[in-house]
């Protein structure tokens, strides 16, 4: 019978590293990626030859960028693969690394993500077209339509919507790896230009460059490599899903998120009330409201008011997007999902400094990708 990851060999996150998300620079992707990888190895206290398999989440770099990068760590001949799954590429590379360890194929695996934005991919744009618009509708248009519909149904205001961005910029201002590190007031966030519908510029995530890396390993490797057992974070669930056909008028992103997250809860025995920190796909402010409800973190129609009144701040009942999320930390595509695992691991270890959610024990990472796909991981402090 099929098993979930929790029923297989335990998998631990033992090393994390980032290269700051930022506007596109002249630095080659190899340099960004190596910085994150070396930092993850140092954090784990292991060396590159200890790593037995490698997955690179990337959507924009073209064919086979992985070996051209990792050869600079010393060519050890390990199995590698690029993982492309749109915005969820980095989440999917993490899942592949977890699967390698859970199955017993290797004891130590690394997932990384690196990207530099380029022109959008045509195949991805075809994913969801139902239009006679005759011009390409960007993701911001899709989420503006969802935002206006949600606002009409729930009665929330533009200030409610903007409060997501105010919170996430406040968190991002405390994160040295965030692309946007400036606190923004409600007035700042509501300042035009409007990109689409109620979404102003600061309610849309910046897409820049960056890199993230995570080391996962088995219990045996923890012992053999003398990895600090006080800093272990266990992977409790890894769920990957793609869009099904929903009834007409359904908000696809919420429906897909709900079913994927609840599968992860089922597999792990974790309930929404247990979750202390969440990194989710807040590419646009409305998404955090929709997904908080879809994840069962509050009732339907309640998220906006709870966000506006601080319940999901750092120090609140559950910290949503403590890294700053996609809105402030940024969304360099390939690294984003791996970067979420970095933030959650930091939080669960109690090493998040000024961004620390007190007493964080359980974290949830969530990405959606155009297509549509959804990836959810639940992590727990050991």
């Amino acid at each position, binding site marked *: 019978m099929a098993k979930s990851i929790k029923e297989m060999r335990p998998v631990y996150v033992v090393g994390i590293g980032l290269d700051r998300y930022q506007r596109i620079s002249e630095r080659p992707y190899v340099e960004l990626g190596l910085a994150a990888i070396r930092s993850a190895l140092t954090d784990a206290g292991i060396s590159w030859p200890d790593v037995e398999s490698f997955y690179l989440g990337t959507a924009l770099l073209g064919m086979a960028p992985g070996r051209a990068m990792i050869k600079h760590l010393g060519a050890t001949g390990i199995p590698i693969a690029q993982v492309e799954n749109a915005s969820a590429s980095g989440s999917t590379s993490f899942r592949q690394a977890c699967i390698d360890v859970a199955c017993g194929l290797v004891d130590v695996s690394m997932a990384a993500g690196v990207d530099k934005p380029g022109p959008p991919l045509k195949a991805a744009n075809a994913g969801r*077209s*139902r*239009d*006679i*618009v*005759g011009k390409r*509708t960007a993701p*911001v*248009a899709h989420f*503006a*339509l*969802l*935002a*206006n*519909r949600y606002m*009409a*149904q729930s009665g929330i205001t533009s200030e409610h919507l903007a409060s997501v961005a105010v919170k996430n910029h406040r968190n991002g201002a405390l994160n040295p790896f965030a692309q946007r590190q400036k606190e923004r007031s409600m007035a700042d966030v509501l300042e*035009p*230009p*409007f*990109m*689409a*519908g*109620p979404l102003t510029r600061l309610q849309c995530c910046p897409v820049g460059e960056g890199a993230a890396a995570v080391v996962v390993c088995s219990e045996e490797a923890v012992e053999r490599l003398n990895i600090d057992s006080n800093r272990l974070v266990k992977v409790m669930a890894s769920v990957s899903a793609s869009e099904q*056909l929903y009834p*007409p*008028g359904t908000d696809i992103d919420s429906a897909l998120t709900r079913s994927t997250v609840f599968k992860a809860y089922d597999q792990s025995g974790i309930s929404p009330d247990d979750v202390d920190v969440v990194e989710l796909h807040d590419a646009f402010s409305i998404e955090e409201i929709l997904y908080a409800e879809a994840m069962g973190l509050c009732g339907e129609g309640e998220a906006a008011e709870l966000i506006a009144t601080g319940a999901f701040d750092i120090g609140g009942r559950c910290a949503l997007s403590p890294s700053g999320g996609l809105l402030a930390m940024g969304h360099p595509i390939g690294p984003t999902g791996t970067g979420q695992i970095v933030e959650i691991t930091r939080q669960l270890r109690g090493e998040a400094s000024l961004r620390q959610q007190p007493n964080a024990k359980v974290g949830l990472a969530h990405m959606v990708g155009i297509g549509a796909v959804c990836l959810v991981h639940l992590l727990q402090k050991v």
Partner: protein
Amino acid sequence: MTNANESFRLENGYPVIIGTTCASCDFAWFPPVEFGCERCGSYGKSLIESSFLLKGTLLSFADIMPGTDTSFLLSTIELENGATIRAILGCTTEMAIGDLTHGRIETIEDKPAIRFYGIGE
């Protein structure tokens, strides 16, 4: 009057878009599906070209890039046969989510194009 790639036309005086109906599960698709039905997986002769009347309900709309030369009102519309489409609103009067709406074929920048309006317009 037809557009370049025949995705809409006038039929008996009424504007329609050309989509696909799945003979196996009755689902209506726009744009047309060619390779297989997303609901039931049927393909080949099960996929029948059908015309859909441009009448439906406004599920949402949003001003895209307001205040710029390229701004337009984008909408999501559920047609009477269940197909959900994205379309541009041409209305000059206020519309609200949940309103009934209908589409017309117009000439925009020398090309035929569809615009949706409120029922009174």
